């Protein structure tokens, strides 16, 4: 029970949809740097928390909030203030 609860997050792929809606292309290969511990990992390897009620991306190393997305009735909200850098491979942006 405890072990199961400890892994209540998913990997970053689970959050790719809402972020892809914002950027207009697949974000899973984007390199995201944590604003807390400065560790970098591709989006797909970060931690995702879904529906709480928005979509939240956290650092797997330090749990720092990297970014979040909320879709309201007529807007997408994006908060990237917890991450210091997003590096977009050019292949991703033209795919």
């Amino acid at each position, binding site marked *: 029970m*405890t072990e199961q*609860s*400890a892994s*209540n*997050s998913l990997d970053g792929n689970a959050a790719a949809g809402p972020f892809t809606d914002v950027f207009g292309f697949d974000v899973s290969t984007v390199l995201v740097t944590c604003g807390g511990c400065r560790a970098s990992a591709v989006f797909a390897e970060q*931690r995702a*928390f*879904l*529906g*709480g*009620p*928005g979509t*939240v991306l*956290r650092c797997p190393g330090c*749990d720092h*909030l990297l970014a*979040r997305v*909320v*879709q*309201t*009735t007529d*807007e997408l*909200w994006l*908060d990237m203030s917890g991450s210091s850098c997003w590096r977009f491979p050019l292949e991703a942006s033209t795919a």
Partner: protein
Amino acid sequence: MLGEGAHRLDELARSGREDGDMGIITRGFGGRREPEAAALPPGQYLTRDFPVLTAGPTQYVDTADWSFTITTETGDRTTWSWADLMALTSEDIETDIHCVTRWSKLGTRWHGVPVDTVLEHIETAADYLMAHSYGGYTTNLPLEDVLDGKAWLAYGYADGPLPVEHGGPLRLLVPHLYFWKSAKWLNGFTLLTSDEPGFWEGFGYHNHGDPWREERYDGD
């Protein structure tokens, strides 16, 4: 949206089959009619499950290390240990809960201490509070929404202790507002003379969150 609709019908069908304790829903359930609609706020569907939704990792706090602190607008602090809190008069609560992600669950049973009890002897001129949780989650509420028997510090669910995935050892329970206001792993209130947005209120979600008025999003 299509997926959501399909899920809703599935839940209704399951309610119709399985509900022994929700006669209103079961009686007369027949395809297109939705006899439970009167019991549900607009845009909500019934669930028998208890979905686990969080904005961050599950917080494991041993009751030996747990505390709850109220900080007033002047900086005065009052802290309860787990033993202090257990010594307060508690009560059973049976209530419906409504999540902004559109599920509602009827007749949930909780146990806890009314928020009135911990605020009773606090000297304050505040009209608002910020609820704080282990893990850093915050949510803001007007005091009038947590006083007069409208909110609880809940540590029991069904007939047992509140499970950690649902916010144990203790969560805020404010069932008349969308459930993101019922902060899991609660560890304190900061009393405020002017309102400030919490984690979701500052980011797309409604500041107040009344499900009967469908106060889901900023601007609703």
